[in-house]
């Protein structure tokens, strides 16, 4: 048999630049003696998930005297960025290994002993694999547990269906007694955790991969059942709204971070002002945020049309996330196109 000869080098995609590398902590990385800017290992890539501020906020809260906070993860302390808490407070950081359902049950047990367990794990393994444990062990007893599902939606792109999570809002907003919220960036996570720390009962926070565009320059106002108007007319820069502004279309954009319970007022306002409401989410349109908006419109008899942007009733194709967002109309241009259509333009 002939020796295998590798094919010529393929045109690769580089997810790392010298500039990015300069901004991340490489103390655990093994790429020190490597030659290329484009080279990265797992230790280096984790530094890119900068918008997942969970570990930092929890460490701050512990520093401020919150002795009740304990942190749980399932072999994902690094990707979900809670490992920093574990380094500073190792006696109350529990890594269960790859054993999600065990972790959820144990968090419930910890909550019964006067602790505030914060679970941080990939959303698809936490919310989808663990949904029955979440319901029976945490929500039915009404325990004080915070769950942070990361890397939600199709942010994991070419990792495929097992690593996509377009069903967690639907599955979890069906569970009685569970608050479901979606902080969109690092400052939103800071606000979300701090504002709800003394709220009694379980809360699920749905967050991204940590590489998202920054929406909030500082921690915003945050409350259960609240929302934040990001743009009334043209007072903030947001992708789709900017594209449409150039075409003479002024858009109001509301961050409806509280999915359950939902803030009804902005929906009423938009229905009245525009005659249509457009919901956008990185989730299946069936049973997700758009469905929650539809419930409000129907229940209140609002006279308007609802356009739901989200994943169709199918499993995502494989591919780099950027390509997938474009394909499914979840990028700025895709959202702008849906608005034009809604306006009949």
């Amino acid at each position, binding site marked *: 048999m002939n020796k*295998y000869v590798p094919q010529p080098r393929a045109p*690769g995609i*580089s997810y790392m630049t010298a500039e990015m590398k300069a901004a991340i902590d490489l103390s655990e990385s093994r790429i020190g003696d490597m030659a290329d800017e484009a080279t990265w*290992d797992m230790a280096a890539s984790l530094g890119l998930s900068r918008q997942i501020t969970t570990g930092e906020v929890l460490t701050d809260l512990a520093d401020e005297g919150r002795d009740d906070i304990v942190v749980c993860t399932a072999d994902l302390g690094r990707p979900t960025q809670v490992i920093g808490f574990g380094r500073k407070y190792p006696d109350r950081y529990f890594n269960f290994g790859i054993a999600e359902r065990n972790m959820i049950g144990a968090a419930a047990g910890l909550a019964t002993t006067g602790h505030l367990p914060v679970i941080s794990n990939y959303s698809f393994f936490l919310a989808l694999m663990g949904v029955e444990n979440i319901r029976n062990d945490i929500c039915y007893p009404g325990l004080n547990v915070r769950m942070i599902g990361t890397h939600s939606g199709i942010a994991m792109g*070419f*990792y495929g*269906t097992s690593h996509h999570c377009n069903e967690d809002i639907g599955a979890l907003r069906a569970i009685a007694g569970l608050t479901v919220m979606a902080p969109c960036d690092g400052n939103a996570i800071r606000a979300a955790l701090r504002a709800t720390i003394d709220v009694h009962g379980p809360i699920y926070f749905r967050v991204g991969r940590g590489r998202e565009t920054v929406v909030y320059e500082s921690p915003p106002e945050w409350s259960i059942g609240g929302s934040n108007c990001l743009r009334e007319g043209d007072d903030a820069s947001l992708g789709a709204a900017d594209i449409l502004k150039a075409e003479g279309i002024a858009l109001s954009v509301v961050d409806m971070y509280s999915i359950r319970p939902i803030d009804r007022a902005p929906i009423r306002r938009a229905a009245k002002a525009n005659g249509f409401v457009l919901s956008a989410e990185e989730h299946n349109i069936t049973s997700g945020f758009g469905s929650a908006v539809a419930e409000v419109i129907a229940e209140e008899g609002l006279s308007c049309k609802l356009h739901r942007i989200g994943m169709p009733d199918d499993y995502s*194709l494989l*591919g780099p996330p950027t390509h997938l967002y474009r394909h499914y109309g979840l990028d700025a241009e895709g959202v702008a196109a849906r608005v034009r259509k809604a306006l009949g333009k």
Partner: protein
Amino acid sequence: MSSRAVKNISKQDLREKARMIRLETLRLTDICGSGHYGSTFSMAELVAVLYYQLLHVDPKNAKWPDRDRFTMGKGHAAIGLYPVLADLGFFPTDWLDTYTRFGSPLGDHPDMKKVPGADFSSGSIGHNLSVSVGMALGLKRKKSPGRVVCLMGDGEQAEGQVWEAAISGAHWGLDNLVGIVDINAAGSDGHPQETMKTEPLKAKWEAFGWRTFVLADGHDLDAVSDTLNRALNAPNGRPTCVLAYTVAGKGVSFMEHGWEWHLGFLGPKDLERAYREVMQGEVG
């Protein structure tokens, strides 16, 4: 059960197939921009022996009902399986050039609906030994000679579902079922035994009713071949577990051991260095 046919392939040829797995992993990762080097290099000899010597599969008839099945608990190493399936003729080799590109059938984890020869999808750790139990039950009921091999990771041994599957595999005496644990000592958060101790695995698998073999060096082709062949020729009534102690990143010196190269990417000069080491190395 009677002794199964084994394909005639030399040790040197097996070594070249394992080399191909590593070289293609380097190349496909270069296409993608990201890849699981560590856990793919650790399983290269196991996969080469299975597909080129021991498993009864038919690339021209991928869905042959009496074929052996191969499932991956550690689906993130699929990048090492695709080149083998292409090389055997399950799908055209030029599919490999589309690895993880928009709309490609070949993603970071194997997808049974998209990849001919992939017996089951994977990506959520801990599921596939249960799936394999079901396959083994079904094959037995159909009186098929087919075997089911499930390759798991060592971090995966922390999943409760693995042990539920282990209980049921022994309960139903699934001698057509083989579990392999690729013990490469690398997980997302570090060394799995430090994250969550699952050793002693031999005592555990034996206590759960499985005939258990220890492969002290999962890169030693003679030992891999002998052990997996014995596992596939089980005496009546018991499933077999092979504990394969391997090295994460095996074959590229700067990637060996540790969790850091569980995932990564090599720029052009570093890639050349890795290519050179794999080309010149004599693993196995």
